[in-house]
C-alpha cells in the first residue's frame, strides 16, 4: 500500500470517488491549452522544425480543435524557417498552402528560389570537382569528407534519397570509430526524415557496436532514435524501454530530431500502455533519470502517478486534455488512438482486479461514463479473457469469477480420453485399409 495514505477513514470514499470529486482540489487539473506554436517550434531546429510546422498546419485545418489562426501561424513560421535555409521545393509547397492569405510578404518569392537554385548548381559543381580530385588522389579522409559534404548539401536541399546514398558511401572510407559513429548519426537523421525506420534500427545497432567512441550524449541520441523506430513499428513496449533509458544529458542536443519533452511524453505514454504495475513503478516512477524528463511535461507526470494510485478519472481527464495536442505531433499522430485504448483497457482491468464484486454504477462514475457504455466495454474485455468476471445485468454488478480448476481438469481428462479413443480407432482402421491395399497390390505383382 502507498505510504502516502495518512488516514484510514476516507479511503472508501476515495476509492469510490477516484479523484473525480470537486472537493478534492489538492491537484489542480491543468487543461491542455491550445498548442503554443512558437514555444513548440522553438524546441526544434533544422528540417524537422519545418516538417512539424507543416504537419500542424495540415492537421489543424481538419481537427475539430484546430482553428484557422493556428493553421496560418504555423504556415507563417514555416515560411520564415524555410527562407533561412536552401530548400526551394519546400518553399514552393508552403507558398502554395499559404495561398496569399498572409499578405504579400508571404508569397512565392521566385527570385529567391531562382537565386538559391543557381547557387545550388554552382555548389554542386564545385563539390563534384573536389570529390573527383580527391578520388584520383585516393586520400581516404578527403574522400570521406567529400561525400559527407555532398550528403549535407543534398539534405539541405531536400533531396533526401541522394543524401542517404552519399552518407552511406562514406562508410567505405571511415577509418576510426568516430567516423563510423558520425556516419551512422547522419544516416539516422536522414532516415528519420524520410520515414524509413528500418534503416534507423540497423544503423543504431551499428553505431552501438563502437562503444569507445560514444559519449553519453551520443548514446542518449541513439536511444531516442531507437525509441522512435520502435514507436513507428508499433512495438510500444520496446519503445518505452528505449525512451526510459535515455539519460537526461540529452537536453536539447538532438533538437534536429526530438525534444526532451517528446522523450517524456512518448516514453510515459508507451510505458503506461504496455508495462505492468511493477515495471511501471520501478522503471518510470522510481526512475531518477526519467524524472528529469517528466518535470518538463508535468501533465504526463501527473497522469502516470494518478494511474498508479488508481485515480482513474483524473488520469483519463488528463489524457483527454492532452489528446488534441498529441494528435498534432508528427510521430505520435498515428498511435494516439491505440495507446489511449490500451491505457483505458488497462485502467478498467486494474480497477476490477482487487474486488470480488463491483457496483457498475460506481465504476461508471469513476470512469466518467454511462453504465451501458461501461457494460459494453467490460463485455468486450471479458470475451477477450482479460477480465475474469461475469456481469449481473439485472442488478448491474460485476462478480469476479475464478475458474474451478478441479472441474476443468476432469473435463479435460475425459475429453482427452475420448479424443485418444477416436484417433486410435481411426488409425487402426486406416492401417488396416492400407495393409489390405498393399497386400492386393503386392499379390498382383507376385
Amino acid at each position, binding site marked *: 500500500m502507498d505510504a502516502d495514505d495518512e488516514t484510514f477513514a476516507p479511503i472508501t470514499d476515495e476509492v469510490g470517488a477516484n479523484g473525480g470529486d470537486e472537493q478534492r482540489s489538492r491537484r489542480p487539473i491543468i487543461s491542455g491549452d491550445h498548442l503554443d506554436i512558437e514555444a513548440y517550434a522553438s524546441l526544434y531546429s533544422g528540417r524537422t522544425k519545418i516538417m512539424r510546422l507543416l504537419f500542424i498546419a495540415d492537421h489543424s485545418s481538419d481537427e475539430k480543435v484546430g482553428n484557422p489562426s493556428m493553421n496560418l501561424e504555423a504556415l507563417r513560421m514555416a515560411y520564415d524557417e524555410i527562407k533561412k535555409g536552401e530548400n526551394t521545393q519546400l518553399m514552393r509547397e508552403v507558398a502554395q498552402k499559404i495561398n496569399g492569405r498572409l499578405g504579400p510578404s508571404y508569397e512565392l518569392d521566385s527570385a529567391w528560389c531562382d537565386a538559391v537554385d543557381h547557387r545550388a548548381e554552382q555548389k554542386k559543381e564545385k563539390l563534384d570537382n573536389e570529390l573527383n580530385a580527391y578520388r584520383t588522389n585516393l586520400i581516404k579522409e578527403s574522400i570521406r569528407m567529400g561525400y559527407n559534404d555532398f550528403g549535407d548539401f543534398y539534405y539541405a536541399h531536400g533531396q533526401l534519397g541522394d543524401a542517404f546514398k552519399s552518407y552511406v558511401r562514406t562508410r567505405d572510407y571511415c577509418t576510426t570509430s568516430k567516423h563510423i559513429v558520425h556516419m551512422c548519426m547522419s544516416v539516422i537523421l536522414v532516415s528519420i526524415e524520410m520515414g524509413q525506420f528500418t534503416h534507423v534500427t540497423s544503423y543504431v545497432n551499428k553505431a552501438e557496436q563502437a562503444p569507445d567512441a560514444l559519449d553519453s550524449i551520443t548514446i542518449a541520441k541513439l536511444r531516442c532514435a531507437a525509441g522512435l523506430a520502435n514507436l513507428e513499428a508499433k512495438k510500444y513496449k520496446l519503445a518505452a524501454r528505449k525512451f526510459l533509458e535515455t539519460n537526461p544529458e540529452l537536453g536539447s542536443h538532438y533538437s534536429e530530431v526530438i525534444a526532451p519533452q517528446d522523450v517524456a511524453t512518448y516514453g510515459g505514454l508507451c510505458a503506461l500502455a504496455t508495462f505492468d504495475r511493477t515495471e511501471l513503478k520501478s522503471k518510470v516512477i522510481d526512475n531518477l533519470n526519467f524524472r528529469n524528463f517528466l518535470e518538463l511535461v508535468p501533465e504526463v507526470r501527473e497522469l502516470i502517478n494518478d494511474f498508479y494510485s488508481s485515480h482513474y478519472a483524473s488520469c483519463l481527464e488528463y489524457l483527454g486534455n492532452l489528446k488534441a495536442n498529441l494528435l498534432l505531433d508528427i510521430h505520435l499522430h498515428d498511435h494516439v488512438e491505440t495507446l489511449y485504448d490500451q491505457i483505458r483497457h488497462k485502467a478498467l482491468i486494474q480497477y476490477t482486479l482487487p474486488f470480488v464484486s463491483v457496483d457498475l454504477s460506481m465504476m461508471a462514475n469513476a470512469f466518467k461514463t454511462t453504465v451501458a457504455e461501461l457494460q459494453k466495454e467490460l*463485455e468486450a474485455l*471479458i*470475451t477477450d479473457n482479460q477480465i475474469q468476471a*461475469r*456481469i*449481473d*445485468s*439485472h*442488478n448491474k454488478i460485476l*462478480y469476479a469469477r475464478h475458474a*474451478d480448476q*478441479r*472441474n476443468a481438469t*476432469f473435463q479435460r*481428462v*475425459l475429453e482427452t*480420453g*475420448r479424443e*485418444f*479413443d*477416436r484417433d*486410435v*480407432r*481411426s*488409425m*487402426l*482402421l*486406416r*492401417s*488396416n*485399409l*492400407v*495393409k*489390405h*491395399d*498393399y*497386400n492386393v497390390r*503386392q499379390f498382383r505383382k*507376385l
Partner: protein
Amino acid sequence: MDPLEALVAQIQGLSSTPGDIARLHIILKQADDSLRAESTRLSPVLGQLAPSEHSLGFLYVLDAFTSGQISKQQAETSVPIITGFINACNAEQIRLAPEKFVLVCKRLKDQVMMLEAPIRGAGPLLTAARKLQLSTEHLTPLHSDFLMLCVLAKCYKTGLSILEDDIFEVDQPRDLFLYCYYGGMICIGLKRFQKALDLLHNVVTAPMSTLNAIAVEAYKKYILVSLIHHGQLSTSLPKYASSVAQRSLKNFCQPYIELASSYGTEKIAELEAYVQTNTEKFENDNNLGLVKQVVLSMYKRNIQRLTQTYLTLSLQDIANTVQLNSPKEAEMHVLQMIQDGEIYATINQRDGMVRFLEDPEQYKTCEMIENIDSSIQRIMALSRKLSAMDEQISCDQLYLSKVGRERQRYDFDDFDVPTKFNI
C-alpha cells in the same frame, strides 16, 4: 435319375458332419452351372430342403433360383423365402460360401427396393450381417446395404445398433466408404453429431488413390456437421488424409466452404442471405435440412457465448445481442437449449430475466467414477490392440521385404536380412 433330384438327395444326406459338408461343397460347386440352367424348376426343390440343416445346399439352390430377372410378383414370393432362409440358416455353413450369401442378400435388397418397402429388408439384413461376420470387428458388404435400407426406411435406431461396434477389419474399401457414409446419415438423423463426425471423418481421410463420389458427398455433410457441432471448420484436412483428397476435395464442395467462411463471420444476416441465394444447390444435394440446422446452431452458439460473460441478462438484451426479432423468440430459443441440456439457466418470466448457472456436474458421483473407470479400461484395451498390431506388422513378410530392401543403404554392421525376404 434326375440330376436335380440326385443333388437334393446328396444335400439332404451330406449335411450333418463337417467332413460331409466339405464334400458337399465341392459337389455343389461342380453342379452350380447345371443348377442355374434349371432355375425354373427350383421352387419345389426349396420346399424339400430345410434351411437350418441344409443351409449350404439351400444357399446354392436359392442363388440359382433368384438369378436372372425377377418381376414384381415373383419378388413378392421370393422375398419371404429369402427372409426365412436368412433367419434360419446355420452360420458356419454360410461362411463356407460367403460370396454367394452376399449375392443372395443383395438380391433381397434389390427386390425389397423394387417393392418399395425397404423396411422389410432391414431386419433380415441385420441378421444376415451378424451371421456373416467373423467377429464384431469385421465389416461385411452387407453392412452398407443394411444401413442404406435403414436410411431409406427411416428406422434409425436399428441402424444404430450395428454402428456401436468398432470396425477394424475391412475386406473392400468401397464397403467401408458406404458404411461410414450411411452410418453418418443415420447418426445425423438421431442427432448424434459427434459420432456422425467420426464416421464421416473416416471416409474423408481414408486412403484412396482416386477421388470417389462417396467421399465428396461425405465431405459436404462433414462440413455441415462440423459447423453444427463445433462451430468451426478446420480448413485443411489432417496430414494422414490421402493427397488426392487434400488437393481436390475442396474443388467439389465450393458452396459449402463458402458457407463455412460466412459462418465464421458470426453475422446471422449474412449467413441467412447466403443460404437464400444458394438454396437450389443445397437442395440438389439433399442437404437443405442440414443447412437450416447450421443456421439454427449459430443462434445457439451466440447464446452460449453470452453465458461466459453474463450472470443474468434480460430477454430483450439477449434478443438484441443475438439478432433475434423479439424477446419471445429469445425465450423460445433459451428454453429449447435448456431442455436439450446445452446450457444451464433459469428463466424468470416476471422480470424477463435469464439467470445463467454453472454446470452442476461436480464429478463426485459414483456414476462418474464408473464412467471414468470404464474409459480407462477401454483405452488400455485399445492400447494393447495397437501394440499387438504393431508387432504383427513388424513380423509381416511383405513389410520386412520392403524394409529389407531399404536397409541395405545403411551400415553393414546392421544385421543382415535373410535373402528370402529380399524380393
